[in-house]
């Protein structure tokens, strides 16, 4: 693509950064969590922290789907992948996430039929082309991605594709934010709300954060200017003692979300009573499963899965990093045992994982600072 390699509107970026610097109260420490992994990536990639005063601390949140997936779910999925009749499909992000006995890619090297897809519809097509095989789609993602899985399942039902099933790991962002707010070791002053999740759920569902917890939320776009404007909006709210949901990304995020997407989610999925998140533990009402009407397409109902629980490697501190208690580089394994080439934890796998983003860009950030 042939578009210029520079920030849009650098003058406005400078002006926004200056205004943030002017408005902050010197003796106050601001801890702002960006919930979405896309924002984490953008913040590291552009070195935005260096445009901010030192007393604004950006804390990375849980919004990276493969990062919060507990290793036991990988193992359950890979147990299905090992069956000879199964073609196991997943997005590229999932392919390098380790289970106890290796990653999906390594399973493939050992002979399992594991295929990367770019869309759940590709997995459905594989099912139609391979009627004598069982095609399983390993679904991950927040509310951004779940509607795609829902529409694919509706499609599978209307076309009577009976050799297709979904291993559902879709998770919900709001219960995770609530868990963070309820966690005693978390002190977050305000939230940069996720952009594309919010195109689906809208801005309204975040209101409980302001109302019940007294914390401001600003839903943000992904450009440097978007993120700086959102931080400025948060600082203004905090200084004025306000706690509201504001929508910096209104050009894409409607206040009430996407109705067809929400309808598809409600039709296909039910909320699980609880679900385990890596680093955050079990969170009630925080993930989706297929409704009983879709049991025929539910891989967990079709195949017996071990239902394993695996604790993360002791030395890895993924949990603390995920909760924003520990910066990535302070983990004992960071950059030594755990690197993007040989990830121990999923935070080092996905480009949206705080550890991988930190690993790739923190050096650039330091050198570009002057």
């Amino acid at each position: 693509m042939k578009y210029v390699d520079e920030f849009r509107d650098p003058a406005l970026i400078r002006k926004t950064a200056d205004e943030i610097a002017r408005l902050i109260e010197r003796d106050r420490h601001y801890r702002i969590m960006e919930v979405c992994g896309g924002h984490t990536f953008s913040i590291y990639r552009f070195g935005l922290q260096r445009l901010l005063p030192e007393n604004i601390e950006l804390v990375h949140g849980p919004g990276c789907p493969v990062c919060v997936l507990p290793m036991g779910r990988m193992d359950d999925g890979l147990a299905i992948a090992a069956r000879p009749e199964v073609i196991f499909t997943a997005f590229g992000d999932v392919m390098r996430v380790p289970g106890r006995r290796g990653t999906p890619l390594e399973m493939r090297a050992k002979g399992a039929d594991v295929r990367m897809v770019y869309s759940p519809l590709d997995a459905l097509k594989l099912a139609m082309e391979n009627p004598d095989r069982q095609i399983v789609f390993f679904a991950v993602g927040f509310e951004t991605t779940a509607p795609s899985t829902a529409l694919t399942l509706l499609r599978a039902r209307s076309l009577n594709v009976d050799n297709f099933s979904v291993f559902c790991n879709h998770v919900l962002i709001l219960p995770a934010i609530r868990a963070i707010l309820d966690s005693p070791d978390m002190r977050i002053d305000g939230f940069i709300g996720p952009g594309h999740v919010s195109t689906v759920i809208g801005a309204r569902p975040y209101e409980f954060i302001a109302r019940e917890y007294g914390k401001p939320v600003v839903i943000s776009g992904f450009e440097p200017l978007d993120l700086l404007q959102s931080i400025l909006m948060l600082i203004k709210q905090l200084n004025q003692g306000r706690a509201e949901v504001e929508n910096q990304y209104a050009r894409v995020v409607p206040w009430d979300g996407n109705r067809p997407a929400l309808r598809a989610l409600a039709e296909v999925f039910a909320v699980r009573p609880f679900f385990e998140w890596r680093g955050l533990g079990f969170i009630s009402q925080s993930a989706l499963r297929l409704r009983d009407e879709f049991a025929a397409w539910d891989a967990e109902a079709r195949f017996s899965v071990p239902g394993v629980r695996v604790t993360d490697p002791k030395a890895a501190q993924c949990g603390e990093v995920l909760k924003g208690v520990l910066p990535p580089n302070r983990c004992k394994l960071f950059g030594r045992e755990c690197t993007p080439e040989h990830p121990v934890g999923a935070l080092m796998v996905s480009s949206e994982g705080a550890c991988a983003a930190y690993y790739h860009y923190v050096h650039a950030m330091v050198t570009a600072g002057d």
Partner: protein
Amino acid sequence: MCLAIPGQIVRLLDDEGQYAVVDVSGVRRTINIGLLREDGVKPDDWVLIHVGFAMSKISGEQAMDQLRLLEMLGEASVALEEVSGYDFAERAESTNDRQARSAERSE
């Protein structure tokens, strides 16, 4: 996974308003537009695409901004690779659409 890809609708496919051909930096692929049926998507509209589904309608200017953002993030080639990888087109394309295209060609 979270960074959406901007594309321009080339034509709607006659499949219950579920599918359209989209152009992303010269790459043409079929995507699902079922999530935007209340927005009335039509040819030349710009949309944000995620895992083969149009998520939001955006302006042409926003689409250019988003393309530039992907470029700046070093994700442009990843985005193109994703779009090129969408493989569900043949099934989505209906007989009517094939007829329409052969009509286009004969014009």
